[in-house]
């Protein structure tokens, strides 16, 4: 697969964000190009969630600059970010289980027919588009009017991705989409992420699972205590280095060393 490494779709520079006295993000920079999966790694509380909330318009940064296609932007709401082409699929907040697939798909962007006060939600068209779009991503849905709650976790994430792609997202932020999934299901989601990359989208992929990150990632940015520990291209690094980064790097080595004292000597490597 060839991915054109053009100029960055989104570029964030020196972003800081504090909540009260807590510095959640401290001088973080990263950039994502089209056709690239950028993995955001880090421990709980490292600032991953805050960073994606800044990117998706939930929080305004205190300092720093965001550029899309080189143009400075400032999002005051998630709607702003959406209009700029940034779509976010949250791990647990992506879908509303008791609503139908097509209603979920078009929530906030309903197609309408008619005019004036008689303008109404065009459900037939919504169902049709939903079926076509999901089929295009390889998800066979029998009935788009069935509740999202009847879908598996992986299918739900895939619907969220399909929705973002359909609504013209150029940057897709996926917050631990594979966290609660089994091996097979996670594979399905990773395949859709690859499909989105082939479509030229820039994907920001947050995960705790090194196998998922390594399988799909082109770049890896490590956050720790609100700071960036650097960005690595896949070819510049190794699976082991990423594992070490994700496991907490130096902190883990220290732990290994400490535990090594009580373990049999043969376990020392």
């Amino acid at each position, binding site marked *: 697969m060839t991915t054109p490494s053009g100029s960055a779709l989104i570029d964030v520079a020196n972003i800081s964000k504090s909540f009260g006295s807590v510095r959640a993000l401290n001088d973080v920079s990263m950039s994502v190009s089209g056709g690239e999966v950028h993995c955001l790694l880090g421990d709980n509380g490292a600032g991953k969630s805050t960073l994606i909330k800044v990117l998706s318009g939930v929080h305004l940064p205190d300092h720093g600059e965001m550029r899309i296609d080189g143009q400075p932007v400032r999002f005051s709401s998630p709607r702003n970010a959406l209009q700029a082409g940034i779509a976010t699929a*949250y791990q647990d*907040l992506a879908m*509303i289980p008791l609503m139908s697939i097509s209603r979920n798909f078009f929530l*906030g962007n309903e197609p309408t027919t008619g005019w004036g006060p008689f303008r109404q*939600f065009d459900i037939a068209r919504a169902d049709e588009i939903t079926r076509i779009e999901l089929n295009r991503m390889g998800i066979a849905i*029998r009935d788009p009017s069935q509740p999202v709650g*009847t*879908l598996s976790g992986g299918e739900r994430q895939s619907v969220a991705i399909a929705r973002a792609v359909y609504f013209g997202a150029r940057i897709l932020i996926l917050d631990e989409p594979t966290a609660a999934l089994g091996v097979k299901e996670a594979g399905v989601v990773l395949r859709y992420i690859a499909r989105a990359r082939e479509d030229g989208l820039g994907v920001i992929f947050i995960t705790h699972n090194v196998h998922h990150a390594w399988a799909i990632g082109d770049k890896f940015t490590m956050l720790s205590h609100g700071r960036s520990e650097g960005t690595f291209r896949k070819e510049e690094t190794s699976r082991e280095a990423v594992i070490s980064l994700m496991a907490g790097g130096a902190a883990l080595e220290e732990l290994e060393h400490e535990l090594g004292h009580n373990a049999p000597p043969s376990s020392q490597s």
Partner: protein
Amino acid sequence: MSASNAAAPEHRELKQDDRLQQQHMLRRVLLRPEVGALAGAAALWMYFAIAAGDRGFLSLAGTASYLEVAAQLGILAIAVSLLMISGEFDLSIGSMIGAAGMVIAILSVEYDLNIWLAMFAALLVSIAVGVVNGLLVRWTRLPSFIITLATLFIIRGLTIAITRIVTGRTTVSDLDEAAGYASAQRLFDSEITLLGAGFPVSILWWVGLTTLATWVLIRTPYGNWIFGCGGNEQAAHNVGVPVNRVKISLFIVTAVAAWLVAVIQVIALRGANVIQGEQREFYAIIAVVIGGTLLTGGYGSAIGAAIGALIYGMVQQGMIYVGIDSDWFQVFLGSMVLFAVLLNQIVRVRAMKVGS
């Protein structure tokens, strides 16, 4: 030979598709929130038809009597169902009925205002109450149950206190002497004669508003937003649904529904009483819950609420026809709620399983 071989699998496939289709239809029907209520209403109607059919329950006059009770509660319940689907409560509507009724009565009787102007003033008051409820809930992010419990008492208290200051009494009568009463009566308190029996016009309001609310809920983007807000407020917000606007507008809708009930009542009674509408908020919630709407929001229907109100009306009037002491009414109503909640729970869990 080969032809029959080719035809066989095709035939089987078709059959299987048929079965799938049927399963979808069944699930779709079972997933409708109002299914349980509809079955309950049919069962109750049959019970009363057998128990009191010869005592007038089946007569047109008997039908009109329970439909009228159902209509007045139904108008409220429809509005409450929309608000509850969006994930909020409004307990203040009972007091709002009393307040709106008193505003109309005092302005038109004590200050000789045309009744239409008095009604308009009361409408503005109800919109203001809806806005205040909505803003308080959205600003504080406290549960609307608590906020509107507070406004329930504040509005009732204000109604009693101000009425006593202005009139020295707690009731205002002789509304029929106010200017414009005759035309208002035609719109809100006339009877439509059908097959020799008089049906109150409030039934038309009820049916019309049920239709409108159902259309809004399932056929407009705004309706989709209502479901979204109640299903998962954060998710709805994240995809660009204006959650504040949706919820505040629905608090206005419930307050205006209370105003409409007040208008119908004061014109029918030719006067107002400060305690009018007491406990209506609970009966409205009961009707909505019996109608299959989830207390936690995100799921429900306006038709269900209308059927819930129908059940309320049928039971209240049916018990009179059967000759059961009305002391038992509340026992029955409470049991209905429990039964409805359990039934809806089971149906929903089963329906969600069909697909996976």
